[in-house]
């Protein structure tokens, strides 16, 4: 890892988003999240069958979609890292940052689904294909995040290992999505991205769902930028500590030899 370019304060310059753009995204994220709360809890009409319990959907579904998106970014960045012509540290860091967010969104989708399932299905959990494959997705990428923490003697070799693991784990994403079509499940079929591509949701409810998706996507972009920044800073710090330790070692060993 080469010496990164540093700014006046001595911090690495490596950032995903320009600071101005990041601030704009941050503000728009907050505005859209406030709008989501207003529409999700009051603006959208109450569902005919499920009643108010259906309002959990406006968070559950965007969480699940963002989990797909985050893991897709992890897989794409991993592939770009594995391909020799595009191999760069940025892809490795991006993959790690996105996977952590994906794990959070998957966990959120599972917990919110459980809270929605209790009043509507009558149970917190069911061992059907959708729920089990989603839980598997959570643990696969949790394992991937753990794997990233295991240091490798050769950093590039370690990053390649991580990238391969991410691509393997990503296989579960289409399985999760199509599980409700391929197997019989308690979980309902897709409302929006169904095989007929004909959303089965009433106007304002559909609008609220899209609002939730936009708000969560913006939040994801913002958090991805921040998580990437943290990775850069922590790598820089680790590099420095290593350099310092090596320098110390060299000076003491020289002293002994002399």
């Amino acid at each position, binding site marked *: 890892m080469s010496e990164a370019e540093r700014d006046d304060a001595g911090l690495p310059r490596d950032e995903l988003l320009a600071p101005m753009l990041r601030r704009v995204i941050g503000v728009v994220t907050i505005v859209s999240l406030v709008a989501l709360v207003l529409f999700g809890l009051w603006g959208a009409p109450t569902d005919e069958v499920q009643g108010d319990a259906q309002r959990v959907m406006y968070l559950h579904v965007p969480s699940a979609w963002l989990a797909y998106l985050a893991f897709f970014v992890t897989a794409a960045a991993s592939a770009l890292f594995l391909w020799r012509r595009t191999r760069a540290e940025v892809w490795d860091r991006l993959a790690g940052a996105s996977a952590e967010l994906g794990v959070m969104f998957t966990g959120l989708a599972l917990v919110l689904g459980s809270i929605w399932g209790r009043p509507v299905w009558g149970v917190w959990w069911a061992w059907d294909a959708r729920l089990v494959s989603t839980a598997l997705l959570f643990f696969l990428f949790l394992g991937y995040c753990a794997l990233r923490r295991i240091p490798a003697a050769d950093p590039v070799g370690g990053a390649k290992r991580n990238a391969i693991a991410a691509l393997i784990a990503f296989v579960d994403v289409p399985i999760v999505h199509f599980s409700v079509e391929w197997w019989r499940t*308690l979980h309902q079929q897709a409302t929006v991205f169904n095989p007929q591509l004909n959303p089965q949701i009433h106007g304002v409810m559909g609008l609220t769902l899209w609002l939730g998706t936009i708000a969560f996507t913006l939040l994801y972009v913002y958090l991805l930028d921040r998580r990437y920044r943290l990775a850069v800073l922590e790598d820089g710090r680790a590099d420095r500590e290593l350099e310092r330790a090596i320098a110390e070692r060299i000076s003491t060993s020289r002293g002994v030899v002399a």
Partner: protein
Amino acid sequence: MTDANKRRPRYIGAAVLCALTVAIAVVLVVVLSENVVYFRTVSEAVNDRSNQGHDRFRLAGAVVPGSRKETDNGVNFEMTDGNKTVRVFHHGDTPALFKDNTPVLCEGRWGNGLIFDSDRILIRHGPKYQPPKVDTKHAPRVKA
């Protein structure tokens, strides 16, 4: 440091991960092999009645309107998938959304004949969401 020393942590990590992956895979295969057929429709279950014995399974259908009768420890109702109908004796609580025409899954086993003994009712719901239809033409008028 020798080359072998440098490489060791990677092998330990990889071994732990492989073991974990295999363990998860085994659990999944066991769980999913029982649940890939998460439920049987009323027709499938009735047609396969003689082979079914007293094994537990989930029965899927809709509540026949007007068939529900409260019993001492639960409810007794008819369930249909449009082709075949069975009577279900359910012991236990019923979910809040358990109403006429509701698509349900009943967990339990065959009793005598075409009677299904259920001890758990799960509500299924479709992917469709909409507000209740308000009859605007015949809406009650508010007098000033």
